[in-house]
């Protein structure tokens, strides 16, 4: 688990039952595979999946393609149920996993 340059924008606290929006921006080059005459072939290296879990339970998952530009931005909503950690994971080609976490206080 390594760190990634990312910005997570979400409220730090919410009322129980409230719908909150979570915005996640990560720095990644999203290199698509290169293989053409005259070019040095290089494998695809993109963030192929993104996952978010809330208090241990998965709440959001997304498959990303090589058609998505660098520095992918993802926004989704969830319902505030209990105080807990929202964990984010970016899965990169080659097996690297980057993670970040933020705490949501529910009142």
């Amino acid at each position, binding site marked *: 688990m390594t760190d990634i*340059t*990312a*910005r997570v*924008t979400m409220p730090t606290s919410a009322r129980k039952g409230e719908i909150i929006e979570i*915005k996640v*921006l990560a*720095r990644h*080059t999203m290199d698509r595979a290169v293989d053409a005459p005259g070019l040095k072939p290089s494998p695809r290296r993109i963030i192929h999946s993104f996952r978010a879990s809330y208090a241990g339970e998965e709440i959001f998952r997304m498959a990303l393609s090589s058609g998505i*530009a*660098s*520095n992918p*931005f993802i*926004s989704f909503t969830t319902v505030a149920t209990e105080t807990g950690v929202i964990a984010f994971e970016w899965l990169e080609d080659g097996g690297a996993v980057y993670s970040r976490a933020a705490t949501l206080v529910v009142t």
Partner: protein
Amino acid sequence: MRAGAALLACCWAVTALAGDVRAPRAFLSPELRTLQDDPARHPGWLWVEQGEALWRAAPPDSGKQACAGCHGDITGMSGVAARYPAVAADGALLNLELRIERCRTEQQGASAYGYESEALLSLTAAIAARSRGQPVNVRVDGPAAAKLADGRLLYSLRQGQLNLSCQQCHEENVGKRLRGDVISHGLGTGYPAYRLEWNGVGSLHRRLRACSLGVRAVQAPFGSPDYLALELFLADKARGLAVEAPGIRR
């Protein structure tokens, strides 16, 4: 009532003046303008955050202080970017990037980051972001007057195989379309900017090099006196307009 009318007339006059040179953001699509205003979505803020980390980090091996050691918190840099480029005590015209480089080599005893390096772009973006929304106000008197004249000359000089000057596009054809984009007044208030074409943050000099290439002229190196003078001229042209850095550009 009369005072109100006078005030209204005054406002109109100001709008008319500002209307001569429109801010770069006025040329963005509504979507890009929204993106530029939203730090949660704007990828340029990734660089700003990195720059803020560099601001607090002492340079390795030199035993000298971090930027924050002398200058304090980066919030103290508010308004600085609006005053650059500026002429230093030794008479050299420095933009924000070169000012940082000089501070790094002379005060911190560290090796220069190198123009257009990720570290320098990040630090410049972080400092420039502190002046966001503040009016550009560069000094063009005293030693800067000659530099401004150089910049003005370069701006109106026909260059390259296409034999075009900056002014032919950015004065005489503003608002018309060129290669799928709208020609702006060519101001640098949004730089360092996140350019979609680059998939990253780049300096104004990188943008100017792209313009030089566009008219098939010789590209000056990063930080060259020509581009510095041009940068000063553009900043003077943008006087009173808000700093937009880090901007979003196409």
